[in-house]
């Protein structure tokens, strides 16, 4: 196997693994956040606008760690610096 196909294989494998493993923790976190928010809304329905707003901001911030993994995968597939380096030579 020459260098280019080695890089391609590693990139595709790691890109899939990055998103697959990296998404586990944020999704667990988001599930916990939504569950607590639902509990809070059930106990205090009056405060639901505030809770919902805070929940959305919190969810987006938790989501960003999953998004980082996705960005890494996308860089590996579409803008791999090593690929361009070796393909150029």
């Amino acid at each position, binding site marked *: 196997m020459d260098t280019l196909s080695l890089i391609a294989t590693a990139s595709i494998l790691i890109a899939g693994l990055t998103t697959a493993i990296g998404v586990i923790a944020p999704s667990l976190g988001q599930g916990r956040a939504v569950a607590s928010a639902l509990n809070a809304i059930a106990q205090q329905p009056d405060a639901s606008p505030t809770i919902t707003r805070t929940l*959305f*901001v919190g969810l*987006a*911030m938790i*989501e*960003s760690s999953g*998004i*980082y993994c*996705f*960005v890494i995968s*996308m860089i590996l597939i*579409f*803008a791999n610096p090593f690929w361009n380096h070796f393909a150029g030579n």
Partner: protein
Amino acid sequence: MNITPDQIIYWSYENIRINNTLVTTWAIMILLTGISWLITRNIHPDKPVDGKQGVLEMIFITLNEQISEAGLQNPARYLPFLGTLFLFIAFANIATIFPGYRAPTGSLSTTAALAFCVFLAVPFYNIYDMGLKAYLKTYFSPNPFMAPFNVIGEFTRTLSLSFRLFGNIMSGEIIISILLSLAPFFFPVIMSLFGLLTGIIQAYIFAILATVYIAAASKNN
């Protein structure tokens, strides 16, 4: 498939390139300034408030409230910067409803520039408020051992600010274009709708985080 709108190049001469990001950013800036200028051109205390001015005042008051709720007294000082950040990002993300449009926030160069503005604005506002010495002292709170971490935190939060916005918008676009080839028409529409929601939330988060960063340094003192 282009991962960022930076790769769509309209005109290039040696090292100078005019790409999609640049064009849409300038178009949005001209549109936002033009609309605001048109509405505020002939407002007067004696005149009755018309619909357009009412909408603008609504946005203005909401932004003011949000800034003061996040912990900055006297929001009028910070509104030009924070309000512009929010309006620009929100408008750039909402405009995806037009076909053929690529959001400039889906390019890392735009989001990095915006995050760099926040990176500069934090010391700017705080040095102006409390002086250079008192501002540098905030790096040594709660104790001097935390100084390196405070400095690192300054950089990492700028990085995460830019990556958060870029990743969210870019991932939305990529998922839509993948779905277009898998299940055309129905699912891409739902994902575009979801993208509008994410776009507004991300604009809100970007502005509120900038507010919190500015407020945090002044609170420590």
